């Protein structure tokens, strides 16, 4: 639908913060308790001179099937602010890693029943996966079952204390 007679002054009053706030409502399609802003994949938001908006996203995993879908969600969300031209692109100019997830984002992962990723110094070692804290009972007496889970970003673990299998957002 083409919106005509749109008030230009409304566009002009839109600030970068308004856009970020809108993007904070775009949730990860695979983990609906974390927004793409808290996930750390919104790399750049720019309001151009012609009041078009450019958003640059950085992918979590190169093979993530949700990428295109997230681009569409971003376009729709910003479009709802009345901005007609929204340019969304995904780049590898910066490399996403799990340290970029915000505190609020880590809480969101827990809400979804996922053990959050441990902070790392840029180099993920296997021991980061060996004693992951169980999101159900808090025990660290856990075992890595498989570094691969139901989505590319998750690994599967088992808690030897509460005897539950659980998933972990793996550090990259």
């Amino acid at each position, binding site marked *: 639908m083409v919106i005509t007679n749109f008030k230009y002054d409304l566009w002009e009053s839109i600030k970068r913060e308004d856009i970020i706030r809108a993007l904070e409502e775009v949730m990860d399609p695979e983990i609906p308790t974390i927004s793409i802003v808290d996930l750390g994949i919104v790399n750049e938001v720019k309001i151009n001179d012609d009041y078009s908006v450019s958003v640059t996203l950085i992918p979590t995993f190169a093979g993530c099937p949700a990428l295109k879908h997230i681009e569409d969600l971003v376009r729709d969300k910003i479009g709802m602010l009345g901005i007609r031209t929204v340019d969304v692109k995904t780049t590898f100019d910066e490399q996403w890693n799990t340290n970029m997830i915000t505190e609020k984002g880590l809480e969101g992962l827990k809400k979804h029943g996922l053990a959050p990723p441990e902070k790392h110094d840029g180099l993920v070692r296997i021991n980061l996966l060996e004693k992951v804290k169980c999101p159900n009972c808090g025990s660290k007496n856990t075992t890595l079952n498989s570094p691969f889970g139901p989505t590319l970003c998750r690994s599967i673990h088992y808690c030897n204390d509460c005897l539950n299998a659980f998933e972990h957002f793996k550090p*990259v």
Partner: protein
Amino acid sequence: MNYNKQQAAAIKDLLYKIADDQLIIGHRNSEWTGLGPILEEDIAFSSIAQDKIGQSQHIYGILHTLGEKDPDTIAFTRGVKEFKCCHFVEYPIGEYDFSLMRNFLFNHAEAARFDMLSGSSFEPIQKLAKKYRGEIKYHTMHSDTWIKQLARATDESHNRMQKVLNDSFNLALGIFEESEHYGVLHEMKVFEGENSLKSKWLETIIPIFESALLKIPGQDSWKPSLGGRKGLHTGYLPALLDEMCEVFKIDPKAEW
């Protein structure tokens, strides 16, 4: 940066062989979907497949910016001779021992390749390489665990792993078939070259084999399976491409 014709051809050749290896081994890994010996392995092979095919797509994306066709067209419409993958990735999945050993040998070569490329002067691949290193770490973690586990479990599993290592080693050496563009890439500091990559690969895999009590075949028996990088393939590749491209070719213009 502007590249002359020869330099651009060299970069494209490098990108094609890396992405083709990933696409084809990714397809092979995906053939375990639904068939893995245990559920976790089914998921592992499927996830590794998804990673590798996803990674190849972005490299085809760079090729597209260099004037080649779009990633889907590159992946699904080329003829056999236009593929630059090595023979190793073309082989059928065989039994689980072969698929695991292939992943082990290939993953470490790939990890070393992206390590080298993360210092490349060709910026688009340098950035992807930095990203891919982190993802491939999980692939090597998977294959390392199983190689060590199976090689040290029972006599039967040890013997099978040793046999499959002997049978696949020359195929693995084919990964490092040197390119005619080697000099140009080296001079431009785009890529150090296959020989140097092979040394790095050996430095990584030999200690792991030692801890797993496996031995790589003696150097006098090394006969790399060559030709893949020049478009000369085994009979397995056309069969794989027929299957992989079947749906796409029903209606190449379909919107997905």
